[in-house]
């Protein structure tokens, strides 16, 4: 092969190109010529000088020399010229052209090396050519060397050349065949199923439907089934992400039963959703359910039902807040139901119901304000009516208490003594009367009836508005019982005013 490049004859000389040098040299020549009278007699001197000038002045000459050598198929010399020009040339366009022609020259040298079966040199020149067409040559050489090595039983060498094709010329026309060959080697000789799978993935990604891909597909079916089983085991032990990674990978390639894989993916998402429900993380559950549907749309009905249930859980939670009149949280939970099922009718109804409750409460408050004003003006009948309306809208303890108070006041206005007596009589289902009668019954054991003096109930006005005193005296020759209570007509409360009265109430 060295003979190919022996045509390199010379390197570019350092001929002075600067105009000053040339001008000086020519001036010396011309002056001598003129002095000696040579000039008129030798007109060819001018032509010679002009030729020397033009030959040395033009920077392009070196590039042109390279071109000329390329045309004459003196590729090595052309490369030397181009290298020199690329190094020193000022014109980027010419440098670019020189680089292109240099690349073509290396490619030609690579071709010559291939013809002489000088493979290593062909590889080196192919790399130096550094072009698409040179890559094709390189790929051919690598494949040939790989084939030769494998035929000779040199497995690692063969693998080395196959790897070179895949790494250096990944879009080569030999790539599918080489990937197929590597899959075959990995499965039959090396037993490296993962390597085979990686190569198959590359083969399918780059050349789906290619004859080699179709041939390799059945080899990977059992591998894919094993991977799916492994993914199932992972999912069962809670490694959902790892399981999904495997299953999604399997779903991408035509070696596995896609329906089965998608169903498994959907199942894993559903499992994750159920876990999220158990943790009351409903939004996360909803996300998983949606993923489950997208993975396997046949599960839509089941998942929709489950989603409705989750949305129902949000509404139930909202209802709990509504019962506590926590409208903010109730609304938040109702709206979460919409996140799961947009325009969920049950959530809409719940929100409508909540808004009605809110409006009723507001209206009841307004009525209570009006009733309170009437209460102050002692228009008890009208106030009572408004409070009752308010209770209809919002059954609030405060309103109920107000109603009772107003009723008491009305009674008190009508006949306070009788009302006070009735309060005493009604107190704890007539407890006071019963116990006073018991006291009297006990006294009758010890005293004769005429010895016992019973004052009966005496209702008297007490200090404070709507406050009365109820008095009951029992006198015997040796014992006296003076019972005394204060009665508040407004709220029907009875307060004992002495120890004996307090004891009677207990």
């Amino acid at each position, binding site marked *: 092969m060295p003979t190919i490049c022996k045509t390199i004859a010379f390197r570019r000389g350092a001929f002075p190109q600067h105009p000053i040098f040339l001008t000086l040299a020519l001036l010396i020549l011309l002056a001598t010529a003129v002095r000696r009278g040579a000039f008129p007699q030798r007109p060819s001197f001018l032509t010679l000088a002009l030729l020397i*000038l*033009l030959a040395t002045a033009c920077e392009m000459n070196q590039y042109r020399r390279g071109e000329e050598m390329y045309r004459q198929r003196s590729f090595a010399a052309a490369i030397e010229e181009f290298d020199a020009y690329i190094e020193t040339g000022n*014109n980027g366009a010419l440098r670019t052209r020189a680089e292109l022609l240099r690349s073509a020259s290396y490619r030609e040298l690579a071709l010559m090396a291939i013809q002489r079966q000088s493979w290593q040199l062909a590889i*080196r020149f192919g790399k130096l050519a*550094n072009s698409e067409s040179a890559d094709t040559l390189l790929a051919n050489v690598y494949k040939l060397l790989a084939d030769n090595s494998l035929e000779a039983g040199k497995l690692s060498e063969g693998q080395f050349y196959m790897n070179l094709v895949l790494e250096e010329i990944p879009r080569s026309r030999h790539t599918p065949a080489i990937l197929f060959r590597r899959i075959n080697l990995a499965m039959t000789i090396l037993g490296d199923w993962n390597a085979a799978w990686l190569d198959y993935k590359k083969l399918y990604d780059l050349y789906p439907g290619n004859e080699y891909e179709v041939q390799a597909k059945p080899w990977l079916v059992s591998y894919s089934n094993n991977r799916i089983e492994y993914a199932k085991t992972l999912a069962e032990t809670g490694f959902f992400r790892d399981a999904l990674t495997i299953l999604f990978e399997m779903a991408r390639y035509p070696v596995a039963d896609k329906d089965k894989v998608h169903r498994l993916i959907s199942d894993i998402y559903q499992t994750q959703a159920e876990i999220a429900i158990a943790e009351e993380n409903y939004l996360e559950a909803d996300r998983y359910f949606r993923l489950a549907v997208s993975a396997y749309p046949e599960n839509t009905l089941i998942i929709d039902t489950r989603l409705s249930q989750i949305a129902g859980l949000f509404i139930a939670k909202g209802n709990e807040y509504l019962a506590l009149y926590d409208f903010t949280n109730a609304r938040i939970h109702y709206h979460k139901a919409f996140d799961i099922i947009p325009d969920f009718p049950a959530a809409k109804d719940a929100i409508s119901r909540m808004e009605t409750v809110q409006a009723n409460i507001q209206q009841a408050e307004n009525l209570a304000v009006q009733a309170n004003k009437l209460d102050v003006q002692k228009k008890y009948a009208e106030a009572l009516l408004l409070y009752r309306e308010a209770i209809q809208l919002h059954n609030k303890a405060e309103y109920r208490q107000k109603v009772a108070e107003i009723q008491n006041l009305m009674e008190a206005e009508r006949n306070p003594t009788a009302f006070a007596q009735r309060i005493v009589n009604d107190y704890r289902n007539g407890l006071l009367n019963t116990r006073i009668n018991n006291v009297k019954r006990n006294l009758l054991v010890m005293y004769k009836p005429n010895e016992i003096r019973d004052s009966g109930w005496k209702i008297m006005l007490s200090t404070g508005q709507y406050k009365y005193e109820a008095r009951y005296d029992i006198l015997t020759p040796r014992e006296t019982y003076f019972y005394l209570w204060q009665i508040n007509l407004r709220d029907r409360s009875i307060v004992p005013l002495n120890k004996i009265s307090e004891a009677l109430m207990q």
Partner: protein
Amino acid sequence: MFKASFILLLLTTGATLTAQQTFDINRFSDPAKYGWQDWFDRINYRNDLIERQKLLQLYENNAQSVNLNVGKSALIPGWGQYSTGDYTKGHIFLGTELVLIGISAYYYDRAMYNYQKYLDATQVLEIENFYKKAQGDYQFTLIFVGLASLVWLFNVYDVVHSTEAFNADLWQRVHNDYYKAPLKLTPTGIEIRF
């Protein structure tokens, strides 16, 4: 002196042209000799070269021919320089050439006048006097023609450099415009730079 200068010139040229170098095939075919250490380096270089190759057409449309400019300057000194936009040089070459040719024409006219006088002279002293004058003027004519030729030669030499400098600048402009352009048409689509 003439012989010595000419031999020196030939020796210098010959020595440089015949310089030999031992050919080393390993060095010549070293895949890393252009600084490409691996596949990525090669791909980067290739992509850059492809990008530059796209600009060549643009360059060709506006580049000036060295031969054409040499022809122009050979015909009218300074014309080629005007074409490359180098007006100062154009003015200098054209002006110098006109002055030198004008002076040489003046001396030639005087030489011819004295030569005619010499032909017409009948006395020995006049014959010698006019002959010397005619010869002196003719020598001046030759000197100025020589200088004009030298300027013309240098003008031709210079136009080659001017044209190459123009073309080198043109490439630089094309290159800069392309790489600084906000909108670029690439093989994969339209590329917009912000």
